[in-house]
């Protein structure tokens, strides 16, 4: 699909921080999925798989950081971030899924040719377009790399328009690293600072060991003109944000992606509220200054 055929709709956005939102797949009731086929499955780690599906005709296209609701009949439906950019392929959509419970187990058990239900895309996105002219620091923890991957793909296409570009990625162990081939390819990209760390090394791991925030001093960027995208466990995001702010990155240029229980994805079931925000419709990507008053309150 070309950019031009994407249905851009401004009215749908309840979000201050991002520009445009694509209208989600519309069916008779907004909670009704359409079915499509799995075209490829790749095992990433011992508990995580990437699944590519055929783009349904009614699916309008997405932006980095948005998510879809994936549905397995008889099992259930869950929110899963979109792990591919439509600039890579217009025909298929990737999701990287960690097996943690009934629905994700059913999703990762799908094989090429199987059907899966999808509705989406939903939510706000990483403002990749506004990164031009900035230094960009992307920080991913664990599965948090999945929703950031399409942003990195698009940032690399914009590379000439950016200042410094860095990706800091932390995983539990070397075996938990996602997209290993792609990481190897990205390492070859000039002017792209890619640093990887693990919480626990193994004998043949020669890279960094330690939490992802310990990588920040190792990259060069100009804080005041930096835009940062962060996704990972909340505790990791708290530390990463604190570190960036203390170095002088303006809070409205730091973006975080949050996760909450989420059943409808259209700002309606009430589960995903964090203060006044619906994570599904106002988020999941928020400028940090907007979400900070709620993000820091325990059990909100």
């Amino acid at each position, binding site marked *: 699909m070309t950019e031009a055929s994407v249905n851009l709709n401004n009215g749908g956005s309840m979000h201050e921080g991002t520009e445009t939102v694509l209208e989600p797949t519309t069916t008779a*009731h907004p*909670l009704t999925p*359409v079915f499509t086929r799995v075209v490829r499955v790749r095992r990433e780690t011992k508990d995580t798989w990437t699944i590519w599906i055929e783009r349904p005709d009614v699916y309008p296209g997405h932006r980095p950081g948005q998510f879809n609701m994936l549905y397995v009949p*008889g099992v259930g*439906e869950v929110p899963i971030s979109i792990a591919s950019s439509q600039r890579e392929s217009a025909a298929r959509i990737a999701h990287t899924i960690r097996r943690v419970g009934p629905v994700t187990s059913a999703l990762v058990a799908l094989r090429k040719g199987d059907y899966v239900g999808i509705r989406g895309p939903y939510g706000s996105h990483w403002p990749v377009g506004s990164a031009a002219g900035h230094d960009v620091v992307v920080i991913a923890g664990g599965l948090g790399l999945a929703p950031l991957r399409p942003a990195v793909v698009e940032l690399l296409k914009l590379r000439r328009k950016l200042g410094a570009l860095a990706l800091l990625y932390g995983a539990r162990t070397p075996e938990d690293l996602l997209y290993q081939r792609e990481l190897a390819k990205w390492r070859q990209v000039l002017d792209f600072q890619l640093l990887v760390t693990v919480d626990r090394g193994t004998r043949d791991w020669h890279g960094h060991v330690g939490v992802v925030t310990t990588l920040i001093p190792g990259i060069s960027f100009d804080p005041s003109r930096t835009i940062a995208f962060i996704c990972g466990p909340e505790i990791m995001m708290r530390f990463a944000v604190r570190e960036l702010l203390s170095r002088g990155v303006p809070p409205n240029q730091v973006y975080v992606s949050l996760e909450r229980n989420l059943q409808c994805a259209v700002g309606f079931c009430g589960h995903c509220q964090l203060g006044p925000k619906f994570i599904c419709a106002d988020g999941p990507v928020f400028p940090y200054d907007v979400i900070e008053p709620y993000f820091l309150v*325990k059990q909100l």
Partner: protein
Amino acid sequence: MAPDEGRAETALLLRKTRFQDLLDHLVQAGYRVIGPTVREGVVTYDEIHRVEQIPRGWVDLQEPGKYRLRYDKNNPFWFSFTPGPISLKRYLFPPTQTLFRVRRDNGRPRAEAVIPDPPRYAFLGVRGCDVRAVAVQDRVYIDRQGQFSDSYYAKARERCLIIAVECQTFADTCFCTSMGSGPQVQSGADLVLTELPDAFVVRSLSDKGQAIVSALELPPAAPEQVAEADQAVREAAGSMERRVDTTDIRNLLLRNLENPRWEEVAKRCIACANCTMVCPTCFCFTVQEVTDLSGENIERRRVQDSCFNPEFSYAFGTIVRQTVSSRYRQWLTHKFATWYDQFGTPGCVGCGRCITWCPVGIDVTEELQAIRNSDGERGASA
């Protein structure tokens, strides 16, 4: 022209002896009439056909954690009760609804959406608070800036008729005057009735309402009758004792997310979720997968849920709101603070249901005042 004069000019009179005609006409016009009636010791909303089903002469006594009904044979009034546990939410947004069924064409699954076909309800005897609750729900379910409108609710709403009856008596738990939702009904209903001992003053606020009064050929009300009815409602409004100070209430609550009062109320709250179930504006739901034994028939249902249920906030393998204090805080701040951000209106209409039906008698108005009195105090976080 003063607004009251406008009200007087258009006011009609429905004698109580003709009330059955109204019910009959509504049925003839294709409506299913849902009105107040006594069931299992409470005034509920249910389908009614006869005036005898209206709780004429019944008076409710409501207090924190208590509800009683008393019959007074000398009471000429038909609507001397305030809201019972059931609100229009049950009809406009049923607690369980099938969203879609999964069909298979040669192995390819297809989600067949259930096309909503709600009855044409005529809601009768709706009090100011509940009329406002529908207006609040409209913002939640329909008016979402082109976002998502709920097809069942939207259709049920479009088809329904609302006949309000203004309150002239209040329960101890009512605080509609603080929330600006009653007892007078100025908008949101199709017809507004104000009771006199032997008749109702009737005002029509919509074309749908106008069609009903025209068909009944109601005579105009005499100015004295209108004045008497209005006076009774005004006096009653003045006598309401329970109050909420809504001054800057959104910011008050949002700057007190770590107030020690949340811990205090959590010592009493048993997280039973009654308050959210009876609240006419609470809308949260969960979605369930329902499969028969063969696994062939699969459907997805939306079911009413509550922020007091621990699993409500289950995500990334944990419960985000572990403590009861965090769940009570979520509820109260949603109603009185974040609802403004989301829908431009408070989520509370002052019906008092949550106060009456709380088994331990927790009173929102008291909790809000306690927060106000301890504004700025910080305790151990929730």
